[in-house]
């Protein structure tokens, strides 16, 4: 059973979906929001809202203080300094910023090698690939050799001698749920710029970029109880200092003349224009909520649910589950049911059982192609069903979900 507190904190959980209790298993796409975050958004807009950094009036000062408190909170969370925390609109914007700024400042040049894995979602794939067409650097792919898209340490080690300029890799796959050995990255690639996509990892785990030695870490708040439209980009100071901005405009400048401009100090140099002020301020509340629960507890809880879901689905004949299916799998279970398209599974789970899961290719087409090759299904549907768990899910939820899949299977094959 879910604790009364969680039930009260997340009003969405009280919804009835087609007469059934909502079982929300789509947190990898976006998490539900606690009252604390929504109330903060409302209160901030009503009592403290103004633009930030520019004016001297009282409201502007209050808003600026609140925004900077949020930055400090995230800096503490990651164990870095506030100047290294850039607020963006999300993971996609952060990765685009990193790629373009590395190029503009000469860190990444023609003929350099960028390594990405086949596990990446499109946000950490498309920017690297597309910009290589214009800038002439090479992109190569780390191919997972393990069970259904599972990346093994050996797959990384194969590239040890390739001396990539950049290694851009996810910390946790949004399709298979595999938690990658991110602590090994620096050992394997001692001289590379390491960009860690934490979109799925950071909601489940406290990541310390300096300790594990990554140069950039990106994640989005909407997957960890916060509002949409807020992303955090950590960048190691020596890079941020030397990097050319991605967006030009207000706030990010120092002095503008008719001949040239100089840039503001860190991190404002990378925050052109008016940011999502209320969203950034309310993001702090999301982080406080998660810290109160404790990331160890979050990890333990979602790992337990993942294990239960895998065990439950394994009992159903004709279900193919992707990913490692061991302790490396965290919060996400992707699967297909033989002969039934994932859209149909997802639609009926919703209509008949009140269970919300995602179906589709999860913005990770290269990985889906790999799964297709390894699949034993006669017709692989170019997509999967994905159940993803977060702090407000329970063992009851998993039971309802597994029972639903079982009934759908029986119903379709009767």
């Amino acid at each position, binding site marked *: 059973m879910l604790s009364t507190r969680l039930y009260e904190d997340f009003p969405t959980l009280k919804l009835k979906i087609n007469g059934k209790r909502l079982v929300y298993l789509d947190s990898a796409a976006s998490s539900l929001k606690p009252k604390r975050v929504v109330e903060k958004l409302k209160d901030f807009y009503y009592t403290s809202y103004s633009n930030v950094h520019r004016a001297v009036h009282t409201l502007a000062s209050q808003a600026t203080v609140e925004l900077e408190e949020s930055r400090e909170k995230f800096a503490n969370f990651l164990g870095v300094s506030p100047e290294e925390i850039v607020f963006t609109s999300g993971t996609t914007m952060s990765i685009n910023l990193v790629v373009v700024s590395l190029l503009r400042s000469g860190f990444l040049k023609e003929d350099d090698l960028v390594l990405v894995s086949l596990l990446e979602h499109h946000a950490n794939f498309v920017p690297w690939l597309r910009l290589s067409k214009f800038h002439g650097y090479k992109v190569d792919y780390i191919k997972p050799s393990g069970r259904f898209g599972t990346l093994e340490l050996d797959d990384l080690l194969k590239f040890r001698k390739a001396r990539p300029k950049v290694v851009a890799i996810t910390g946790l796959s949004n399709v298979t749920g595999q938690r990658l050995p991110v602590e090994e990255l620096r050992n394997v690639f001692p001289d590379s710029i390491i960009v860690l996509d934490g979109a799925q990892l950071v909601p489940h785990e406290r990541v310390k970029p300096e300790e594990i030695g990554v140069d950039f870490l990106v994640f989005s708040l909407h997957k960890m109880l916060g509002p949409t439209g807020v992303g955090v980009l950590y960048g190691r100071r020596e890079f941020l200092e030397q990097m050319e901005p991605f967006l030009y405009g207000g706030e990010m400048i120092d002095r503008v003349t008719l001949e040239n401009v100089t840039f503001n100090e860190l991190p404002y140099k990378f925050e052109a224009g008016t940011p999502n002020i209320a969203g950034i301020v309310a993001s702090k509340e999301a982080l406080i909520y998660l810290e109160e629960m404790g990331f160890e507890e979050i990890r333990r809880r979602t790992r337990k649910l993942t294990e239960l879901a895998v065990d439950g689905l394994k009992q159903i004949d004709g279900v193919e589950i992707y990913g490692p299916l061991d302790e490396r799998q965290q919060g996400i279970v992707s699967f297909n049911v033989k002969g039934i*398209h*994932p*859209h*149909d599974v997802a*639609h*009926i789970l919703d*209509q008949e059982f009140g269970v919300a899961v995602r*179906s*589709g*290719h999860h913005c990770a*087409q290269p990985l*889906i192609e790999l799964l297709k090759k390894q699949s034993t299904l006669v*017709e692989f*549907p*170019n*997509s999967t069903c994905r159940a993803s768990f977060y702090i407000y899910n329970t063992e009851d939820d998993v039971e309802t979900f597994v029972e639903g899949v079982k009934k759908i299977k029986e119903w379709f094959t009767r």
Partner: protein
Amino acid sequence: MMYSEAILDYANSKRFRGRLEDATAVEEGKNISCGDEIILYLKVEDGVVKDTRFEGIGCVISQASASLMIERIIGEKLKNVISIIEEAEKMAKGGSFDEKKLGNITIMSDVKNYPARVKCFLLSWRTLDQVIRKLSQS
């Protein structure tokens, strides 16, 4: 209900599946966010759809829709096909439509209640629309 016996029968039917060797027009359709793909084969002579087949995999909604569509348009003049496509679009989007023109296809009218599934239903129709446009241009 989107999963009635009739709809399941159409989705599982092999009647209109496969490649049409003497097709005069072939078109590929995709639902980008789902990964669903369809290849539609049309044999058109003297402005009349003589035969049609489709290949591809997809959900029940998309497969039933393709079967129903093909059943309805074989033997129709191209100009009638255009108005059938229009009526199917209206039905899927919850507008008023001519039931007579759609015939059996109306068993899927419930799709209007599931906005996320409308694109599944429309995949084959959009693909057909592409073929017809190309044919009318040439």
